[in-house]
C-alpha cells in the first residue's frame, strides 16, 4: 500500500544549525506568536553577522559537524533581504577561501510569512542561491483560520490574501517543500478544513504542532480528537494518504518509552546556536529575551568572546527522564509527546531547563487516539485491498481453469 511519509530533514538532521535573528520586526502580529518582545529597533548589522561567521568558521574543532544549515529568522527575515544577501555572499566566499568542509555542504534556510516573497530582491536572492536553499512559507489554512491569528500589526486585517497569491510561485520553485501550521485553542474547529485547504493549494506536506504554552481550555481535547478523526476520514476516503502527508498521523507515537534506549532529549536546544543583533549567542532562539515571557534570557556567549562552554553543559546533558515528572516517566502513550526546552524554562517555577512542562498532555493524548483511529482504518483498508487482490486472483485462476 502506498503511503506518503514526511520529507526527511536535510542530512538526516545531523547538520549544525546556526540561526541568525536578523530582525525582531515583522509585518504581522500573530496572536499566538511566542515572540513577546518584537520591535523595529533590533536589526542585525553586517559587522555583527560577519563576526559571528568569522568565529564559527574559525573554530572547526567546536563546529565539527559535516554540514551546516544557516537559518535566518525574525520577526520576518525577508524584511532584511539586503543584509541576508550580503551575508550569504560573505559566507560562501569564506567557505571557499578557508577551504572549509562546509563549502560542499551548506544550506540557507528560511521560514517566512510569505508576504514579500514575490519582491524582486527576494526573487533575485532565490535565483542566486537556489541550489542551497530551503524556504518554508507558513500558512495556517483557510482564510478564516489563517486570518483568525495572522493579522497585520496595528490593525486586525488578516494576511491570508497576501500570502496565498505567492504560493504558486513558491511551489513552482520548491515543489517538495512543506508548510508548518501551529494550532492554538481557538484554531481547533478549523483543523480539518485547513489541512484540506492547504492540500487544495498544492501543498503536499503539512507539519502541524500544537503550541506548548498553557493555553488549552476545558473540552479542547475532545474537540481536537473529533477534528482529527474527521480529517483522518477525509484523508483516507479521498486517497490523500498516498501522496500527501500530514504530521498529525505518524506511525510510532502513543506507546510507552524504554527508559534506557529512549532517554534522549526531544529538543535540539544547545545543539543549535542562535545569534541576535547584539551579537549574543543563545542555545536556541526561544532563549532570547524577546521570546521569553517570565524569565531572563540564557546567553551562552557572544561574537567577541565566543561560547562559554559551561553554559552549554546543561543543554548537552539533558535527558528525557531527568526533566520529566512522574506522570510522564510512567506514561503509557509517551512516544511522540514533544516539548520545547524554551517553553519548559519559561513555564518552570524556578529558572531551570530541567523541568518539563506538560501543558500539552491532554492534546497529545487526543492526538494519539485519532492517530490510532487513522492507522486502524488504513490497516483495515490494506486488509480489504489484499482480500480484493486475492479474490481477483481467484477469479483469474478460475477464468484460466474454465
Amino acid at each position, binding site marked *: 500500500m502506498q503511503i506518503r511519509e514526511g520529507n526527511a530533514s536535510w542530512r538526516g538532521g545531523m547538520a549544525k544549525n546556526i540561526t541568525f535573528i536578523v530582525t525582531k520586526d515583522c509585518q504581522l502580529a500573530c496572536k499566538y506568536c511566542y515572540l513577546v518582545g518584537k520591535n523595529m529597533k533590533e536589526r542585525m548589522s553586517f559587522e555583527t553577522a560577519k563576526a559571528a561567521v568569522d568565529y564559527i568558521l574559525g573554530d572547526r574543532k567546536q563546529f565539527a559537524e559535516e554540514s551546516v544549515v544557516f537559518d535566518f529568522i525574525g520577526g520576518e527575515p525577508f524584511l532584511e533581504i539586503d543584509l541576508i544577501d550580503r551575508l550569504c555572499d560573505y559566507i560562501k566566499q569564506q567557505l571557499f577561501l578557508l577551504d572549509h568542509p562546509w563549502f560542499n555542504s551548506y544550506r540557507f534556510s528560511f521560514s517566512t510569512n510569505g508576504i514579500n516573497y514575490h519582491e524582486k530582491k527576494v526573487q533575485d536572492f532565490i535565483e542566486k542561491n537556489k541550489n542551497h536553499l530551503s524556504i518554508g512559507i507558513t500558512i495556517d489554512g483557510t482564510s478564516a483560520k489563517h486570518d483568525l491569528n495572522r493579522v497585520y500589526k496595528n490593525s486586525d486585517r488578516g494576511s491570508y490574501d497576501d500570502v496565498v497569491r505567492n504560493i504558486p510561485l513558491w511551489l513552482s520553485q520548491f515543489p517538495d517543500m512543506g508548510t508548518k501550521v501551529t494550532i492554538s485553542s481557538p484554531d481547533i474547529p478549523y483543523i480539518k478544513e485547513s489541512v484540506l485547504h492547504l492540500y487544495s493549494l498544492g501543498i503536499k506536506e503539512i507539519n502541524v504542532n500544537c503550541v506548548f504554552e498553557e493555553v488549552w481550555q476545558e473540552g479542547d481535547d475532545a474537540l481536537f480528537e473529533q477534528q482529527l478523526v474527521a480529517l483522518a476520514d477525509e484523508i483516507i476516503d479521498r486517497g490523500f494518504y498516498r501522496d500527501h502527508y500530514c504530521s498529525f498521523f505518524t506511525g510510532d507515537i502513543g506507546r510507552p518509552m524504554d527508559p534506557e534506549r529512549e532517554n534522549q532529549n526531544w529538543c535540539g536546544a544547545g545543539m543549535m546556536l542562535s545569534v541576535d543583533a547584539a551579537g549574543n549567542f543563545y542555545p536556541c532562539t526561544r532563549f532570547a529575551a524577546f521570546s521569553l515571557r517570565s524569565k531572563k534570557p540564557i546567553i551562552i556567549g557572544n561574537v567577541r568572546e565566543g561560547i562559554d*562552554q559551561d553554559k552549554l553543559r546543561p543543554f548537552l546533558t539533558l535527558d528525557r527522564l531527568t526533566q520529566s515528572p512522574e506522570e510522564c516517566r510512567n506514561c503509557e502513550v509517551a512516544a511522540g509527546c514533544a516539548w520545547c526546552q524554551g517553553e519548559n524554562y519559561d513555564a518552570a517555577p524556578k529558572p*531551570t531547563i*530541567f523541568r518539563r512542562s506538560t501543558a500539552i498532555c491532554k492534546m497529545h493524548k487526543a492526538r494519539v487516539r485519532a492517530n490510532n483511529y487513522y492507522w486502524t482504518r488504513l490497516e483495515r483498508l490494506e486488509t480489504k485491498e489484499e482480500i480484493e487482490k486475492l479474490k481477483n486472483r481467484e477469479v483469474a485462476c478460475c477464468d484460466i481453469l474454465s
Partner: protein
Amino acid sequence: MLRYLIIMLDASAPSFCYYPDPSSGGRKMPLEVLRKAVYFAQTHALGVNVLCSDPPEKEILQELDRINHIFIGPSSVTSDSVWNVPVLNIGDNLSVFPGNPDKNIILRSDVASLPKLPEAVSALKGKFLRLNVIITDEWKMTPELVTVFQRILEQTGRLADGRQINLITDRAMLSKPSHCEAGVKHLTVAPDGRFYICPGFFHENPEDSCGSLDEGVSVPLEELYRLECAPICRECDAWQCKRCVWMNRKRTLEVNTPSRGQCITSHVVRNYALKDSPTPYLDPFELIGR
C-alpha cells in the same frame, strides 16, 4: 532528608566555603528569630552549625546552649571548643594561628594561590587533626593547569604526616559519594528568618529563599538538588567532590550541572588518591555529553 541547619547569626559572617566573603556591616539575627531557628532544629532533630563574624552576645549563647551546635568562622569565635571549626585563608599569616592538634580546620584558597598550599600545610603542622581545603574558584581549573596542580598535591601529600587533608586522603577512604548536599541534607537560615539553600544563595540574592521559620520549608524543584537528577554527577565516582550546587548555578545556571573546572579539579584529586585506577577522562561530561 534534612540533617542539619546552618544558622547565620549575622549576614557578614565570613565564608567557610566556595562562595565569596560578604561585605561587612550586615544585619544580625534578632534573638526571637534565633529562638525560632533553635526550636526548628530541635523539632526536626537537626544538628546546628553557627556562622558569625564576632563572638556572640550572652543571651545568644544562652539560646544556642539549648541544642548541640558548633561554630564555624574566624579564630575569634572558634578557638574555645575543640569542636568549633576555624576558617583560614591562604593569604593569612598561618604561623601565628594557635591551632590544636585535635581540631578540624577549613583553609580557603583560590586556584592562583594553590602553589602556596604545601607551605601552608607546613605552617599548620601540629595544629589540626583534619584540614579541609576549599579551592574557591575551582571552576577556573583548566587542562593546562593540571600538571601544576598534580605537583602541588604530591608535595602536600608528603607533608600530610598521617593527618587528614581532604584533597589528599578523602577519596581513598570513601565507599560512597560525600557531596555537600545543600538543599537536601542541610539548609541555611539567614538573619531575616528565611531559609536558603546555603549562605552563598542568600548572598547572591536574598529574594531567592526557600521558605521561612514562620511558614516552613519549601524548596522549589527540590529534586534538582539530588544526585539522581544530576546527569553528569550521578555517573561520577569522584566521591570526595563537594558537587557545589552554588558554584554549579553560578557557572552553568543550573544547580544540577557542574562546570568543567569543578570536574577537572575533582578528578585530579580523585586520581591522586586512587593512583591504581585513574579515570581516562578528567571531566565525566565526556562520558555522557551530546
